[in-house]
């Protein structure tokens, strides 16, 4: 009996097996979901994209050069237009639904590496939240002392 580990993830062997990494490299960077959906296709594709993430993502970045601008954040719009916080610049990408887009209490305080620091406009260290517009993940941060008045 063949042990489970020996079975090919995409059995039987498929003609594209040898070219999978080259194929995945060519998925469009302005549609990040394409790569995620491809990673769901089977175990071996998932391993290329996720388990070897450092290798693959480095190749992907090198292949496509400067990442495309998926959109921009308009700080001034957040209080007047609840949906206007993120302005997409590609037709293929729209940020996932998030409390950050629907809630007018948030103010964009800073951003680093694609993650935004949102917060109450009247408070520096209270009501802070991190939001990843690509994945839609939002994580509230514990409140800091109200007395601190340094600006971000």
């Amino acid at each position: 009996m063949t042990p489970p580990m020996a079975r090919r993830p995409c059995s039987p062997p498929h003609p594209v097996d040898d070219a999978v990494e080259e194929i995945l490299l060519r998925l469009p960077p302005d549609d990040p979901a394409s790569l995620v959906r491809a990673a769901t296709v089977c175990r071996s594709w998932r391993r290329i994209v996720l388990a070897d993430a450092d290798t693959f993502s480095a190749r992907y970045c090198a292949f496509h050069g400067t990442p495309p601008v998926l959109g921009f954040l308009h700080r001034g719009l957040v209080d007047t237009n609840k949906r206007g916080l993120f302005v997409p610049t590609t037709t293929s990408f729209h940020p996932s639904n998030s409390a950050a887009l629907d809630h007018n209490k948030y103010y964009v305080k800073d951003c680093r590496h694609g993650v935004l620091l949102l917060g109450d406009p009247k408070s520096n260290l209270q009501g802070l939240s991190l939001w990843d517009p690509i994945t839609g993940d939002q994580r509230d941060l514990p409140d800091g002392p109200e007395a601190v008045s340094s600006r971000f």
Partner: protein
Amino acid sequence: MAAPESGDGNNGAARMVTLISSDNTRFEVEAAAASLSQTLQLTILDGGGGGGDGIPLPNVDSATLSKVLEYCIKHAPAAANGGAPNATAVDRAELERFDNEFVNIDQSVLYSLIMAAHNLEIEGLQSLVAKKVADMIKGKSPMEIRRTLGFPDPTPEEQAEMNAHMLEYGWAYE
């Protein structure tokens, strides 16, 4: 650089080499075109493939080899110019038009090309066929991708893993 020995003593004429497909069909092509294959390049530089010898390619059938050589012959002049930095826009547009038409083929032929490009290590062709498959799968769901490429239906175990992954990365499916 010394010119590789052509074996036919016919200086000035392009050196020819013979490639033999898995079904024993012989293809005579310019060495420059065949040398787009990294696998063949060393043999050709060593003087192989000339005269009556020929280079056997046991993994490539004649239909596929014919198609591969069509690509190599078209791309050889640009490759000889180091990727043709001085090529005119017309030349580049013509190659692009050729490439687009070249991969407008049945999926079974495309698969044969993928394997041949991989075995023969023809970088440009590998890139072209990979782009074609990427275009075929972009924007599709995982199950649509599997069906497009003719993967078998997932086993219950594979399906469970796919479901778990879709749940974890739900944002990509909205």
